[in-house]
C-alpha cells in the first residue's frame, strides 16, 4: 500500500511533465490537424537551453535558487518558443494545403535536424546536473520499513504544472487570442474569412506549445538531472500517446492523458519490468488508437468527401 502510494506520487510528477508536452501536440493537432513530430525535440532543446541558462546564471553570480530558477524558466520559455516558431515558419507554413502526409514527413525531417543540430552543438555525451532542489517531506509513516515521501521537486513540478494550466486555460477561454485559436480549431477557412489572422494564430499556437514544452523540459532536467540529445524522441512519443489517450484536440484531455501515462509507466516499472516500460507506453498508444481513437475526452471525427 505504501509502495503503491509512493509510486502514485512519482507517477503524478512524471505525468505532469508528459501532460505539458502533450498540450503542444494536442493544440497543433486541433488547429491544423497535423502531428508535430518535432515537438518532442523542441522539448529536448528546452532542456538544453534551461541547462545552459542555469550555468550562465551561476557563472555571472546569481546563485539564489528561487531567483535562478525563475530566470531560467523565463529564458527557457523565451528561447524555446523561438524554436517552435522557427520550425513552424520553415517546415510547416509552406505546406499548408498540401496533401495530408506532407507536414508529417516534413516534421520528421525537422526532428532529425534538431536532434543532430543539438548533438553537433553540444556533443553526444550525457549532461549531468547536480540536484538543485533537495529535501523531502514524509507524508505517511506507518512504522513499517517503508516511508512514503514527497520531494520538494515533485511538489514544484505539480504546482508549476497547475499554475501553467490555470494560466493557459485562462488564455484559451478569456482572451482574444484564445478566441481566435478556438475559431481556428473549429474551422480554419471560416475563421480566415471572418477576419482572424490564421497564420499569426497558428504561429502563436506553436509558440505557446513550445513554451510549455520548455517548462516541461526544465522540470525534466531538475527532476532527473540527466539529459542528452536523444531524450526528445521517446518523450515525444509518450506525450503524443498522452494526447491521443486524453482525446486529441482536447486540452484537459492532454493533461489527463499525461497523468495517466505517467502513472501507468511508473506502476509498470514498479510492478513488472523497467526494461519494458517504453513498450507499455507504446502498446497503450496502439490499443487506444485501435479501440478508442477519439480518446477519453475527444470528439468523434467524421471524414467527409
Amino acid at each position: 500500500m505504501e509502495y503503491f502510494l509512493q509510486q502514485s506520487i512519482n507517477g503524478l510528477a512524471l505525468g505532469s511533465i508528459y501532460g505539458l508536452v502533450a498540450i503542444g501536440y494536442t493544440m497543433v493537432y486541433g488547429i491544423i490537424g497535423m502531428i508535430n513530430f518535432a515537438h518532442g525535440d523542441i522539448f529536448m532543446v528546452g532542456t538544453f537551453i534551461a541547462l545552459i541558462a542555469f550555468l550562465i546564471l551561476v557563472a555571472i553570480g546569481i546563485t539564489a535558487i528561487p531567483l535562478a530558477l525563475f530566470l531560467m524558466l523565463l529564458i527557457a520559455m523565451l528561447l524555446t518558443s523561438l524554436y517552435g516558431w522557427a520550425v513552424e515558419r520553415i517546415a510547416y507554413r509552406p505546406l499548408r494545403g498540401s496533401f495530408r502526409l506532407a507536414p508529417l514527413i516534413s516534421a520528421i525531417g525537422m526532428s532529425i535536424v534538431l536532434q543532430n543540430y543539438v548533438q553537433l552543438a553540444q556533443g553526444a555525451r550525457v549532461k549531468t546536473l547536480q540536484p538543485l532542489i533537495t529535501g523531502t517531506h514524509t507524508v505517511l509513516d506507518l512504522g513499517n520499513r517503508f516511508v512514503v515521501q514527497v520531494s520538494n521537486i515533485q511538489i514544484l513540478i505539480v504546482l508549476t504544472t497547475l499554475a501553467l494550466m490555470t494560466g493557459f486555460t485562462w488564455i484559451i477561454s478569456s482572451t482574444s487570442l484564445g478566441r481566435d485559436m478556438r475559431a481556428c480549431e473549429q474551422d480554419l477557412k471560416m475563421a480566415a474569412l471572418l477576419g482572424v489572422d490564421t497564420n499569426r494564430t497558428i504561429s502563436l499556437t506553436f509558440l505557446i506549445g513550445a513554451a510549455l514544452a520548455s517548462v516541461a523540459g526544465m522540470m525534466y532536467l531538475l527532476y532527473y538531472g540527466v539529459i542528452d540529445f536523444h531524450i526528445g524522441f521517446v518523450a515525444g512519443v509518450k506525450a503524443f500517446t498522452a494526447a491521443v489517450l486524453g482525446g486529441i484536440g482536447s486540452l484537459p484531455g492532454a493533461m489527463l492523458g499525461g497523468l495517466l501515462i505517467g502513472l501507468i509507466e511508473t506502476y509498470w516499472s514498479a510492478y513488472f519490468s523497467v526494461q519494458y516500460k517504453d513498450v507499455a507506453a507504446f502498446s497503450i498508444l496502439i490499443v487506444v488508437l485501435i479501440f478508442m481513437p477519439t480518446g477519453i475526452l475527444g470528439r468523434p471525427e467524421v471524414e467527409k468527401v
Partner: protein
Amino acid sequence: MSAARTGNSSVLSHALKDALIAAIVAFGLFMLLLGFLTDDSRGPLRLLTRPVLLATTIGIVFVGRFLISLIYYNATTLRYYLGALWTAICSLAREFKIALVVLLLLIGGGWVFFSPKDWPLILITVATILIGVRFGFSAALLVFAALFPVAFYNNPYFLGIAIIILTYVMLGWGLNIVVGLAGLLDLGYVAFYAVGAYSYAIIAQAYGWSFWVCLPLAGLFAAFFGILLGFPVLRLRGDYLAIVTLAFGEIVRIVLLNWVSLTNGPNGIGSIPRASFFGIPFNATETGFAAKFGLEFDPTHRTVFLFYVILALALITNWVTIRLRKLPVGRAWEALREDEIAVRSLGINPTNTKLTAFAIGAMFGGFAGAFFATRQGFISPDSFTFPESALILAIVVLGGMGSQIGVAIAATVMTASFELFREFEQFRLVIFGFAMVGIMIWRPRGLVSTREPTAYLKERKTISVEHVTEGRG
C-alpha cells in the same frame, strides 16, 4: 515583385531588412546552443564560450538571407535567364546526339589507349552509355549494375558500397509498395527488416539450414509480422497509422534488446552462417568454391556472389511490383492512395487491400533483412533503429513515391553520399533532415521522378497537377 516595379535601391533595402530580421532570429536561436558549450571532460559541468562560431553562424544566416531575398525580388529576370540557358542546353543535346555518341566513343578509345589497365571500366562505361542512348535510362542502369563487379573486381571497397546501395534500393522498393503505391506512411519498416534478419540468424544457427531455405522463411516471418501489425491498425487514418507503425518498430527493437535468451540482447548475434553457392561454401578448403571451379582462392568471389544475390533480390522486388501494379490489387492500391472514400464506395475492402500491401512490403523487407544478416555475419538491435526507418522512408520520398527508377536513384545517391561523408555524420544528417523538408515544400511528389496513377479516366491531368500545385500553395 519584379525588378521593374521596385527600384534597385528599394530592393536592396528590402533585402537588407529581411537579412537583419533573420540575423536577429538566428541570434535568439543560436545564442545559447552554439554560443556556449557545456563541457564535462574535466570534473563537473562547466561552460565554454564560442563567440567566433556564433558570429560566423549568424553571419552566414545574414548573408544567405540577403542573397535569397535579392534573388527572390529579382526572380522574374533570373528565371528568364535560367530558362533560356536550359532551353539552349536541351536543343544542343538534341541536335548533336550522334555527335555525342561518337565523341564518347572517341574519349573511351583514347582512354583505353593511354591506360589499358582500366579496360573493363571503360568497356562498361561505353556499353552503358550506348545502351542508354538506344534503350533508355533504365536499361543502361541495369547493364551498369550487371557489369559492375567486372569493372571493380579489384576494388572490394567499391563492391562493398555497391552491395549496401543495392540493399537500400531493395528496401526502398519494398517500402515503395506500402508508401508509394498504397499511400500508407510506414515509419516502422525497419521492424520487418529486423524480423527478417533475426529469423534468418536464429533459424540458421539453431537448425543449420542453408541461406536459400531460410530466405523464404525470413520473408514469410516478416510478412506474418506485417499482417499481425496491419490487421488491427490499418483501419486508422494516415497520420495515426504512421505513429502506430513507429511505435511498433520501437516495440520490436526493445523486445530484441531485452529478450536475451533468444536474441542475445544488446550484444547481438554473431557468426551467422554465410550464404553458399548451391551448397558450395566460399572458403579456401578442398570443397570450397575456388577449388571446385579450379580457381585460385580469393575472398572477392564471395563479395561478387553477394553482389549478384542482392541484385537478383532487388530486381525480383522490382519485377513483382511492376507486375502487381497491373493486377487488380495494384490498381486498388493506387486508387486507395488517391482517394480512400471513393475506393470504399466502389465496394473494395480497403482494409484487405492495405493488408496485402503491408504484407508484401514487409516480406521484401524480410528478404533484405536475411540478406543483411548473411552479409554482415553479425546483427544487433543497433542496426534497426528509427533513423534507419527514416532513411528508407526518405529514399522513397526523395525518389518520388511510387516511382521505381526514382527510388533506385535516390537510394544510390543517398547511400553513396553517406559513405563519402562518413566523417561528417551529424552534418550530413542535418542536411538530410532539411532535404526532407525541402522536398515536401518544393517537390512533394518526389525529386527524381514522379509517378502518376497507372490507370485513369480521361482526367489524368487534373489528378497529378492538383497534387503538385497543392503542395506549392
